[in-house]
């Protein structure tokens, strides 16, 4: 097992290096540099050139690349030259918001997805089954941002049930009111994600439940005289949850990749919204840091995925 984790970790390193090279190339393709926005028309061009040289922007690319990597390892992601703040501090605040939103949506996806998949699989071919299967294939295919806008329009603006922007109300003071207000702001975006992204969980669980029904161990359990209910929950359901568990890593990562559009629609100050804001202001340092962060996270997620998968299914380990 440890050998596998180590091997999987070693595979991650070249991928990470390739990704940093891509992001570095993108950063170099972007117009402007950290000094572009900082000076007015009266600034002496020679001062500008001297500052550029001192910051190492005239060095050859490889040198700059390794300096950038070195800085990242020291927790220095550079300065946002638009907001005049270290990018690390900017990100810190936003990541928290995104993580809370993501965890709540993921929790809701599981609470909606698992019961519906069980209901579908236990009544295969019934109206209930066809309804949920169709529901999932439609919701899984329609563009998310249109759904978010409809949800915001209906529950936010028309019915006034939920706040329409931000992550916390300004009036909230004290620990509990702030916590309550934060949660209240999370509900609508999280619900919008959860209602419309159960498709992969639903399909995986439904298929594996249906497959498990005819497995040998189920027949053995039945032959022993185990009650139907017990066969289902103790044998079929538990085994069918394994493929679901193994996609947990990717589900976690999906939170961050979906954040760009989700947070833009709901005006939620998380990482995705910060990304869109930094594109608008051409704040390339921040953009790059966010991309590096979510790319690294995806790598870790896919590693987690493989490890969980081989942990729950020893056959993969041997291969």
């Amino acid at each position: 097992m440890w050998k596998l984790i180590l091997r999987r970790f070693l595979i991650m390193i070249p991928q990470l290096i390739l990704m940093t090279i891509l992001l570095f190339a993108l950063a170099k393709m972007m117009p402007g540099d950290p000094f572009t926005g900082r000076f007015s028309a009266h600034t002496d061009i020679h001062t500008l050139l001297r500052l550029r040289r001192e910051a190492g922007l005239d060095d050859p690319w490889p040198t700059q690349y390794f300096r950038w990597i070195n800085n990242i390892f020291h927790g220095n992601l550079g300065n946002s030259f638009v907001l005049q703040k270290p990018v690390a501090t900017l990100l810190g605040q936003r990541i928290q918001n995104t993580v809370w939103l993501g965890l709540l949506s993921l929790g809701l996806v599981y609470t909606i997805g698992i019961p519906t998949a069980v209901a579908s699989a236990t009544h295969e071919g019934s109206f209930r089954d066809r309804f949920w299967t169709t529901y999932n294939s439609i919701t899984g295919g329609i563009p998310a941002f249109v759904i978010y806008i409809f949800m915001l329009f209906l529950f936010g603006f028309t019915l006034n049930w939920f706040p329409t922007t931000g992550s916390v109300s300004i009036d909230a003071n004290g620990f509990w009111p702030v916590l309550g207000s934060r949660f209240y702001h999370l509900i609508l975006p999280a619900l919008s994600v959860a209602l419309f992204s159960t498709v992969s969980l639903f399909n995986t669980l439904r298929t594996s439940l249906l497959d498990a029904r005819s497995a040998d161990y189920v027949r053995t359990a039945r032959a022993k005289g185990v009650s139907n209910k017990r066969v289902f929950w103790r044998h079929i359901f538990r085994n069918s949850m394994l493929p679901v568990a193994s996609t947990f890593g990717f589900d976690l990562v999906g939170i961050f990749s979906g954040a760009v559009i989700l947070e833009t629609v709901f005006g939620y100050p998380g990482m995705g919204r910060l990304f869109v804001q930094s594109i608008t202001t051409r704040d390339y340092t921040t953009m790059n840091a966010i991309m590096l962060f979510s790319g690294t996270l995806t790598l870790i997620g896919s590693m987690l995925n493989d490890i969980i998968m081989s942990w729950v299914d020893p056959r993969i380990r041997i291969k």
Partner: protein
Amino acid sequence: MAKAKKIEQSESQAHAHSFLKAAVREFKRDKIAMISFFFLVIVVFGVFIGSMFIPRDAFSNVDIMDTNLAPFTNGHILGTDDGGRDEFLLVVIAARNSLSISIPVTIVIMAVGIFLGLMSAYYGGFFDWIWMRITDYLSIVPTLMILLTLLTIINNYSIWTLVWVISLFSWIGSMRFFRALTFAERENDYVKASKLSGSSSLAIMWKQIFPNLSSQFYAQTALAFAGNIGLETGISYLGYGLPYTTPSLGTLVNKATDPEVMTQSPWMWLPASFLILALSVSLIFIGQALRRVADQRQSLA
């Protein structure tokens, strides 16, 4: 040799014929898929033919006497926007622009996907290994963010630039799909028999394996098309698709970011949103019906 070729040809014709027949049967049985199909055909042809009759300056023409009109006033069926432009004409133009990106993207990614998928699975070995590493790599990078970054770096682009940039990250799904199918198909006896009788690899891939995957190909195309409409309108919604003078359906939905427009004049964004939804839902129904046809044919074969 000539005879063999003739047999091959008539076989592939029979194949196409039976697919069409099976598809027609399935669509007759599934009324929703049938309605979706006609809706899609009407929208696509209506939008492309209709936009030919719209004067080129319909978008730049600002009419300050008719701004913010509600639907069905002064002869504007869907009302007008803040510049007095007719919403209905805008939706038609926007739908045409959206489709003229998502259709080429679908064609490109399906062509690349089937080509690389077939080759990769058929040849295997190093060729397969290298392409799998490339797709692995592209699936871990934050695609949407890199796409948006690329679109800000390239500051002067046309419809075609947009098509290539979107395609650059979207072919992975279809390539993996066809690779998996080809892997299963490759093990069949007819492939081995054909190889033994001396057919070239290219002939086996394109004249024998590909026709057997063709029904899956059509189903996947419909679903990929739905996905690409979503991707393109999503990018335009964020404001990074085509320039403002060539609006996409996403650009029209973007008006809803202004809370006042969202609540007070929903006719400015609702029709475009509904059209996006209707297009993707009908494509999903079509794709599913085609997939059922493909599965039936697979079980028959």
